[in-house]
């Protein structure tokens, strides 16, 4: 029985489960509420129980939903998953999805947003990662945070994060997704600054928040652009456009009426309608005739929207130019880094583009930009990671780098591989972070890898799992990281964007370089932490292994990072040319994307699989080269040179990488300083002078002067008041007199 067949018989029928999808979000939200409000009174054990149970419950529901999304009715043998989205009925749409619409969330004029949730295979995978890894990390935290007084706040935030992230992936429209998008940003801010009495950590939280805010702004503008595109499309299109989209004008407008313009399914229809057909009135080069976007072409606006989404995704997923917040985000507790800043939240950008792949493939320019941004970010972060001595910092830059690889995949249209890498990365990076947390926990919160060393014997479980995860991220056969990274690199190499063919080669060779760099810095971290003699500067003489609550998640994640490799193999295991399992599994999600790329010449997607010779060998050689170089340097070269100065080359390069290529300083110079100067001007001139001095203090001064002048009138003498009344009365009568005289 294959995996696909196994999933075809869901234990809970989809039509029963669909109306309860909201519970997946509600459970962690309730947990957050309980922990946040009553946590202090409930005590540590109860808070842990509530928080873990909420996520566990959510995990079980997610599992059922995931399962139900592939459900076949055993009697009819047909797919039974329900998808009551009015956009959903189409030419060759396979309903591998579970969705429920809870009705209007809000409507303004004819703009309407429904509260609709959807579990298809893409969001299903994300759901399982979020709740599954999330649960492991909750479990881990019960031990990791055992000495922290604010445990209830921690678990409340963590549950809140899970709820927000689930909203993000369950949303069936952009606006609801944006709610989750903002929610995870807020939870991330709260958790990075969890130890807010340390100004540096609180500052790191603010940095993350502000950086994300820049991206969120772009996200919103992009959403508005899409709304305008939809309305322009409905005004200008003819019947042939809807034929291309596999629907009719009545059906499409009725669905828009019912669901609003921002649902993903509706946007997919829009994308399909924009593909050039023969009798079409509207395609990408058609100018928009009316509205705020008048004169621009559909394709141009689409590219602009996608580039804005790229900026939004760059904020959330830590890509150039907005990646700077992520390394600082390590100020938060380590489980937070593992969950939010490695496994889930930072992959939101990858999820967003996968979700909107149908729109993305309409714009080769945007795709190339995404791929190049991803490659550059990845390379830069990998190089910075070379010289970082803080174990969490290395992992943080590694995360940025791996996210860059995913962006490369998304940008070059190899969506399934990007999602696959997202998944494997969630496993091994969470494992690495939790391993690092375990190391810190056992070594008196030491994070400097130069001051660790030799932990192999003292922390066997941590060592073993860390080794597995390191091998996975390094890309050593046959662990999952190898396959996911190789799938991306292969796709990048063979997919082509129209007019931008050079991007494939550029990104591919950068990718090889990144793979080697990854192997180098990960080997370095591993060697310095676990191998060799114990450092003389170590904080504690003997490290202790962590409790089971911490090692169990490590083991589970390590196992997952091994077995996830199965999804890269063909449906027929030994057939190296058959479609990979995950590709097949995700094909319903990307069906519209595929139709568009088949129909247009914008993007040429390759479906070949990487072969052992030469692809695997090449990738393996690259990984080994990087790892071998690190092993040589840190096992032989540097230990032998203790006491002697480093060679000139290293002396020249090292500070550059150590100081993160001065990117923070560059931002300081070109962004923060000017902004600060503007702020200073605004503060001095507008705020201090005009508002404070003239408006506020001026008003107060005048009032005070008038008041002290009037004080003499307020003598308390009732007769004086009466005299004023009399004079006023006289005034009134005098006015009447004048009226009478006239």
């Amino acid at each position, binding site marked *: 029985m294959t995996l696909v067949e196994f999933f075809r018989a869901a234990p809970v029928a989809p039509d029963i489960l669909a109306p309860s999808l909201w519970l997946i979000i509600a459970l962690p939200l309730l947990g957050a509420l309980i922990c946040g409000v009553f946590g202090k009174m409930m005590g540590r054990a109860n808070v842990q129980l509530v928080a873990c149970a909420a996520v566990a419950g959510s995990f079980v529901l997610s599992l059922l939903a995931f399962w139900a999304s592939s459900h076949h009715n055993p009697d009819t043998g047909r797919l039974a998953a329900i998808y009551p989205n009015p956009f959903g009925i189409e030419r060759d749409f396979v309903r591998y999805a579970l969705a429920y619409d809870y009705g209007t969330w809000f409507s303004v004029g004819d703009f309407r947003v429904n509260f609709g949730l959807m579990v298809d295979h893409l969001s299903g995978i994300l759901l399982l990662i979020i709740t599954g890894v999330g649960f492991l990390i909750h479990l881990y935290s019960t031990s990791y945070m055992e000495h922290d007084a604010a445990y209830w706040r921690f678990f409340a935030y963590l549950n809140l994060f899970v709820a927000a992230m689930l909203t993000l992936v369950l949303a069936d429209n952009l606006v609801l997704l944006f709610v989750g998008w903002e929610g995870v940003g807020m939870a991330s801010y709260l958790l990075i600054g969890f130890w807010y009495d340390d100004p540096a950590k609180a500052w790191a939280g603010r940095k993350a928040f502000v950086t994300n805010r820049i991206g969120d702004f772009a996200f919103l503008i992009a959403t508005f652009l899409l709304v305008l595109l939809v309305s322009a499309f409905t005004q200008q299109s003819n019947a042939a456009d809807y034929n291309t989209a596999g629907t009719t004008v009545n059906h499409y407008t009725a669905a828009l009426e019912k669901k609003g313009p921002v649902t993903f399914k509706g946007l997919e229809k829009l994308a399909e309608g924009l593909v050039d057909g023969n009798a079409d009135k509207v395609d990408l080069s058609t100018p928009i005739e009316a509205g705020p976007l008048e004169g621009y072409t559909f394709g141009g606006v689409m590219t602009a929207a996608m580039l804005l989404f790229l900026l939004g995704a760059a904020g959330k997923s830590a890509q150039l130019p907005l990646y700077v917040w992520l390394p600082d985000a390590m100020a938060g507790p380590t489980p937070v880094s593992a969950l939010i800043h490695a496994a889930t939240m930072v992959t939101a950008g990858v999820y967003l583009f996968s979700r909107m792949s149908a729109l993305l493939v309409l714009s080769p320019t945007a795709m190339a930009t995404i791929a190049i941004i991803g490659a550059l970010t990845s390379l830069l972060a990998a190089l910075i990671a070379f010289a970082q001595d803080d174990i969490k910092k290395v992992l943080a830059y590694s995360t940025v780098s791996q996210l860059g690889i995913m962006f490369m995949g998304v940008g070059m249209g190899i969506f399934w591989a990007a999602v696959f890498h997202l998944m494997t990365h969630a496993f091994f990076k969470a494992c690495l972070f939790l391993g690092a947390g375990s190391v810190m926990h056992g070594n008196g919160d030491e994070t400097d890898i130069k001051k660790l060393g030799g932990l192999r014997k003292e922390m066997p479980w941590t060592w073993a799992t860390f080794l597995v995860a390191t091998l996975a991220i390094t890309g050593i056969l046959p662990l999952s990281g190898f396959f996911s990274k190789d799938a991306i690199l292969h796709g990048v190499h063979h997919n082509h964007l129209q007019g931008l063919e050079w991007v494939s080669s550029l990104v591919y060779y950068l990718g090889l370089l990144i793979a080697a760099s990854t192997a180098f810095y990960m080997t370095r971290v591993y060697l310095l932490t676990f191998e060799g003699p114990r450092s003389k500067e170590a904080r504690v003489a003997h490290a202790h292994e962590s409790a089971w609550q911490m090692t169990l998640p490590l083991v589970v994640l390590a196992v997952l990072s091994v077995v996830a490799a199965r999804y890269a193999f063909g449906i027929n295991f030994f057939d190296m040319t058959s479609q990979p399992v995950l590709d097949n599994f995700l094909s319903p999600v990307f069906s519209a994307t595929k139709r568009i790329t088949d129909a247009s010449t914008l993007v040429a997607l390759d479906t070949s699989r990487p072969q052992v010779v030469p692809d695997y060998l090449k990738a393996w050689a690259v990984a080994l080269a990087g790892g071998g170089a690190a092993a040589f340097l840190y096992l032989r070269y540097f230990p032998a040179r203790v006491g002697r100065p480093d060679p000139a080359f290293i002396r020249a390069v090292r500070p550059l990488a150590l100081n993160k290529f001065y990117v923070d300083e560059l931002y300081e110079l070109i962004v923060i300083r000017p902004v600060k100067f503007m702020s200073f001007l605004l503060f001095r001139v507008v705020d201090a002078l005009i508002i404070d001095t003239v408006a506020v203090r001026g008003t107060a001064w005048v009032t005070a002067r008038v008041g002290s002048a009037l004080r003499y009138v307020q003598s308390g*003498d009732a*007769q*004086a008041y*009466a*005299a004023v009344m*009399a*004079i006023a*009365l*006289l005034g009134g*009568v*005098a006015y*009447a*007199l004048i009226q*009478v005289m006239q």
Partner: protein
Amino acid sequence: MNIELILFGAFALLTLLSAGTVIFARSPINSAMALVSTFFFLAGIYVLLWAHTVAVMQVLVYAGAIMVLFLFVIMLLNLGESPTRGKPTVARIAGGAATVGLFAALAIILLKIPAAPATLSTDAQASFGTIATLGQVIFTQWLLPFEAVSLLLLVAMVGAVVVAKSRI
């Protein structure tokens, strides 16, 4: 020159004289007594205006009840002549001047308005201002305000007790 005008002139003169005494008498007792006479003369004026009921109430309530209250308080507080004269402050001068000006303005306005008494039919003359007519109006059309006034008096009574009592 008819009797009505003579009576009006006499009552008006006496009223104003009494009122002047109220204002200028140095002792509060004298003021109070002058006030009583003002009320009496005013009652006469009311009669000239055919307002018999109001005239009777004027005597009963004002000259009777209210004045007794005043005298009672004066006696209770044992107030005599003030030993010092008040200083003419700015407020007093301004207030006095304003009052004179107000009277001048009012006088000019009033003289501009021609106002003559209504000519009433014999039946209307017989019932105008009688207690029967007034009572009928008050207990039908103005019943609610009348009850409200009774409540007001009750509240005033309780309030006076509460305020004036040194210890409750």
